[in-house]
């Protein structure tokens, strides 16, 4: 089984092209679990509901997990809107960059 950190490392290869940071740094990944059947579930959100890359980002996350963690058999992404994302969830580096 992979740990949450392993999964987050895999997901961190996916970037938000608008801000240039990966989804983990942005604080968009709420949870990541791998069960004994090597099925991974990623719970995540987006910085806005109207994100035009909505479906693409979900697909990228699924692909990233499968690509980076070879033993994973299946990836499922739960896209949630609660709690609503806010900047406090991002890393200090992201906050500093966005602050100009």
């Amino acid at each position, binding site marked *: 089984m992979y740990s949450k950190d392993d999964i987050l490392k895999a997901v961190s290869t996916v970037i938000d092209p608008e801000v240039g940071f990966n989804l983990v740094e942005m604080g968009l990944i709420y949870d990541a679990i791998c069960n004994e059947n090597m099925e991974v579930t990623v719970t995540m959100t987006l*910085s806005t509901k109207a994100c035009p890359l909505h479906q693409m980002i979900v697909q*990228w996350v699924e692909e990233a997990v499968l690509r980076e963690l070879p033993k994973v058999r299946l990836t499922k992404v739960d896209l949630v809107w609660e709690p609503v994302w806010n900047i406090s969830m991002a890393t200090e580096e992201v906050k500093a960059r966005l602050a100009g």
Partner: protein
Amino acid sequence: MIIIFGAMAQLVPVVLEVGHFAVDLYYTIYPLLFIGAILMAMGFVYYPSLLPFGGTIAFVSFSIFLFETFLTILKVKKINFVIVSVLLANIFLFFGLIIGIILALGYSGTIDINIYQFLKAHIYLVLVGYVGITIMGMSLILLPMFWLSHGFSWKYIKSSLSILSVGILFVVLSSFSNITFFEYLGYFFTLIALFLYFYQVFIIYKTRVRLENDIYFKSIMFSFLSLLLSLILGIIYIFYPIENIFLTLSWILLGGFITFIITGHLYKIIPFLVWYERFSPYVGKKKIPMLVDIVPKKSANMQFVFSSIGVIFVSLGILNINETIYKSGLSFLSIGAIFLLKDILYMIRFKEDV
């Protein structure tokens, strides 16, 4: 209008969260609108008999756009405030078009109508009803998205949209009833609505977490300052109805507000489309450029500086009836337009080995 339609082709699915009913219809909308606009321009300048033909072709183009949009809206399962704004804008466009075709027939002498009255209703329905509400609705999606604003109330924009709709109805009603009171009531409601919209934008600005002063931010700020200035001039015009003031506020609204809100978004939307098409397949697999890398920053800033100075000078030229200032403003605008064209070509052609 073509650029607005192009933007809507991209934004409608984002806003409505459903795919287009038939996006390929846009391939017929653009050429028809282009031909219609050319014929109408020739009709206004040289041959009035061309107006009904140009008007009919433009009408068909707009109708296809409306048909596609309404059918796309029908796919929506859950109606929200932004969807209501899209629906309202398109209803106003529909009636604006009907009046537009009547106007074209009137101009060409086919039917006998009071052109001024119909023109007022037509302009108000299309420019305020469609373009205005579309900009309002879309900006509520785009501003929080690009500024990363969260946790703000929408109550001001909701009130603004309701009041604006009533204002538009009053102005249209005054066109057909000859009751001047309705017209002024309509303008009054419009002003109130715009101030509420402006306040809503200010709230979004205050709650933003993205503080970079990039070309998008500068353009949007200039755009909203222009809107505020034209509103103030509008109030002055109510008390001092001098033609120069009206022309100046109209110019600032068009050249400052609408133009800058469009150009600002071009610097966001074009890089996104290019990135999506050329680089998104390599996400996670290779190092790829970000959206910000696709924007030519220095040139974009030059475009902003020349265009904004141009808008200011042209405004002063119109207000003071000074041809020299007016023409110098046009020169600045022309250089700004060259930079804009150069930037658009740069972004469209952006390639980087990945």
